[in-house]
């Protein structure tokens, strides 16, 4: 058999002399020439083209080295501000419906049906409340943020952002297209991991995967926004508080970008050594976005799918929360045991035992971190008159009430700041980790993707806490 294969190669060798050298170059050239000839026959361009000039002016502005970055952050700040301001009222309405109306109804139904207390507690206080919380906290900001993001994407702004960041990424030894995958990460880290396929070199792709976590996904915004509003927004006069809160979130985003560069730089000089490869990024034309279609698809396809995933993950987490706070060992619940054990270490890094336990329970879904923290805080401080008992996640009518609970739990501005930093830097959620494992196919790199950000998060929080203590 192999002789026939050899013959093919021999024939090819012989014919190659017949057809002459450099056939590859000649065929490619022939294609280019023909393409140019056909195009010149079929295409006619009329004299005036004002649109091109408009685009050029706009491009000069958004990709200029002096105006590009400020414009980028301004757009980001405005988007966050609209999200924070706009999400408030629908969030409260949903909470009123799901938590204040349906939840008591379910509880009284449980009593009517004479369910045992542990069953109704497990189902309605654990599983249902977790789900309801996720819906009321996540749905409004997502329904506002996703359409805005999609509009910018449809318009053609994203590749300009990539263009602006490209030089920085190259200096960090990473691929310029990482800017695009990072932008996807602001929607969902798991989706962004899949999108790193646009990066050809395995080395640069790994860097993009390992640092994608520093782009806060939609599951982490509610945390960022809420904590920024409670601890930083309240430091400012009321009419400025939402502006200050959005600025704080923008700063967190910027810190995330800085860490993306630092870690990319560190990786490309240590375990993932190599030079950045070149690529061409085409700046597509600006296209007027289709408003209604964008609204429709981003609500139906992005918001509802992400929400559905959050709900699916929140329900088992809610069940776990209820269980750890209701199963007692030696008269004290498992939750309290763990919190007491974690507390000294938590304080050392400017957090507390409650936050650490909440992050362990909430590994499947970042969006349930805040409700878990509130519930555990009440459990530990045994506040009278707030909350509804062990293992019940609840929502408080106003942010001030939330702040009160947290302050009673020993929270300070430092705890708030460090929680925002920890939420930004810590390990990716389990969905993202699973996606990384599927995409890269290596348990080792998946472990690095989990523990590298986690160690950075601990380190940064520790340093901030120590500095804070030294100054304050």
């Amino acid at each position: 058999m192999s002789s026939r294969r050899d013959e093919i190669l021999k024939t090819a060798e012989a014919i190659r002399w017949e057809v002459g050298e450099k056939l590859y170059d000649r065929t490619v050239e022939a294609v280019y020439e023909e393409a140019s000839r056909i195009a010149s026959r079929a295409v006619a361009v009329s004299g005036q083209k004002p649109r091109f000039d408009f685009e050029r002016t706009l491009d000069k502005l958004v990709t200029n080295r002096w105006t590009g970055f400020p414009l980028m952050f301004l757009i980001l700040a405005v988007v966050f501000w609209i999200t924070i301001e706009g999400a408030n009222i629908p969030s409260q309405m949903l909470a009123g419906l799901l938590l204040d109306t349906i939840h008591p109804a379910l509880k009284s139904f449980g009593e009517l049906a004479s369910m045992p207390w542990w069953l109704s507690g497990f189902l309605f206080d654990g599983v249902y409340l977790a789900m309801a919380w996720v819906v009321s906290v996540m749905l409004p900001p997502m329904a506002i943020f996703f359409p805005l993001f999609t509009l910018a994407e449809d318009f053609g702004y994203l590749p300009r952002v990539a263009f602006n960041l490209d030089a920085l990424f190259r200096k960090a030894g990473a691929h310029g297209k990482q800017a695009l995958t990072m932008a996807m990460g602001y929607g969902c880290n798991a989706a962004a991991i899949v999108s790193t396929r646009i990066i050809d070199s395995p080395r640069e792709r790994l860097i993009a995967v390992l640092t994608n976590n520093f782009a806060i996904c939609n599951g982490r915004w509610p945390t960022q926004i809420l904590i920024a509003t409670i601890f930083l927004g309240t430091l400012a006069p009321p009419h400025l508080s939402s502006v200050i809160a959005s600025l704080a979130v923008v700063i967190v985003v910027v810190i995330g970008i800085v860490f993306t560069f630092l870690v990319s730089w560190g990786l490309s000089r240590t375990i993932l050594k190599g030079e950045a490869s070149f690529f061409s990024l085409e700046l597509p034309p600006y296209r007027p976005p289709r408003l209604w279609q964008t609204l429709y698809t981003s609500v139906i396809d992005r918001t509802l799918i992400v929400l559905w995933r959050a709900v699916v993950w929140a329900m088992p987490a809610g069940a776990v929360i209820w269980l750890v706070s209701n199963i007692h060992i030696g008269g004290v619940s498992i939750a309290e045991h763990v919190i007491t054990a974690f507390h000294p270490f938590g304080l050392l890094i400017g957090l507390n035992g409650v936050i650490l336990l909440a992050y362990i329970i909430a590994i499947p879904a970042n969006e349930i971190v805040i409700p878990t923290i509130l519930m555990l805080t009440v459990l530990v401080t045994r506040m009278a008159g707030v909350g509804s008992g062990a293992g019940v996640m609840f929502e408080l009518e106003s942010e001030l009430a939330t702040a009160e609970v947290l302050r009673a739990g020993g929270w300070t501005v430092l705890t708030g700041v460090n929680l925002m930093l920890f939420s930004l830097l810590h390990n990716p959620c389990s969905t993202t980790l699973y996606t990384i494992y599927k995409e890269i196919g290596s348990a080792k790199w998946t472990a690095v993707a989990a523990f590298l950000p986690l160690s950075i998060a601990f380190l940064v929080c520790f340093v901030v806490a120590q500095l804070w203590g030294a100054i304050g």
Partner: protein
Amino acid sequence: MSQLTPEQCEACPINRDAKLTRLGLDVSSFDYVIALAGNPNVGKSTVFNALTGLRQHTGNWPGKTVVRAEGAFSYAGKRYKVVDLPGTYSLLSTSTDEEVARDFILFGEPDVTVVVADATRLERNLNLILQVLEITDRVVVCLNLMDEARRHGITVDDRTLMRELGVPVVPTSARQGEGIVQLLERIHQVATGEFVTKPRRVWTESKNIKNAVDRLAEKIRAEFPNLPNPRWVALRLLEGDQRMIDAVKSGELAALAENIRMRWQSGEKRMEEANVVAS
């Protein structure tokens, strides 16, 4: 003139839209496979959505489709499976996302390859069209973004283009849904063999090269009877492509093509999963 009812319109043979049923994700049984290829960011996913009724994510940046998406529609009594491929500038490149597109066109044996082209950047898009014409006969060119071309004062003569290329050329603005019915009709004609294409073959235009490629392709076909594209392999061998030489020498070529086919057939589930995550 008497009033027409909607029922009469739907029964009318001129109303081609009525022959279209969007089947979404139901790719269970099909008569033809359609591949959507083209440069990045020319609106392939938008055309895909218009054909299948699905809402594959679209956005104005190159590289957003990284996995193959599949959908289906039925038109004039035939069921079509549509495969949306990642954008590619050329069939000669080696990057992983572009490989997906190239492998499918080469070895996935689609019944019709629809090359979606950007009417505002025709010359660059023609490079890919000409390369695709080199390896398959059944091609329909979808000249997309006609609305944008009009806005920029660019007119493209689709009939000249059709004469030059020897395959159907359909001007469309997929975002507005313009030209989709005409595109469907052309796809149908090419798939059923009603329209016989005479593709322009630039590389093998010279008798010399054509003979050489044919002779070598004949030998390759004898050794690898199941290989869908012996002419392409022959051309790459003549160009001295080391990867292709190695694949022939070790006999891996047959396995390679077979693997790709198998992957396309069994890969459906994996791809769907990836889509759910990506959306």
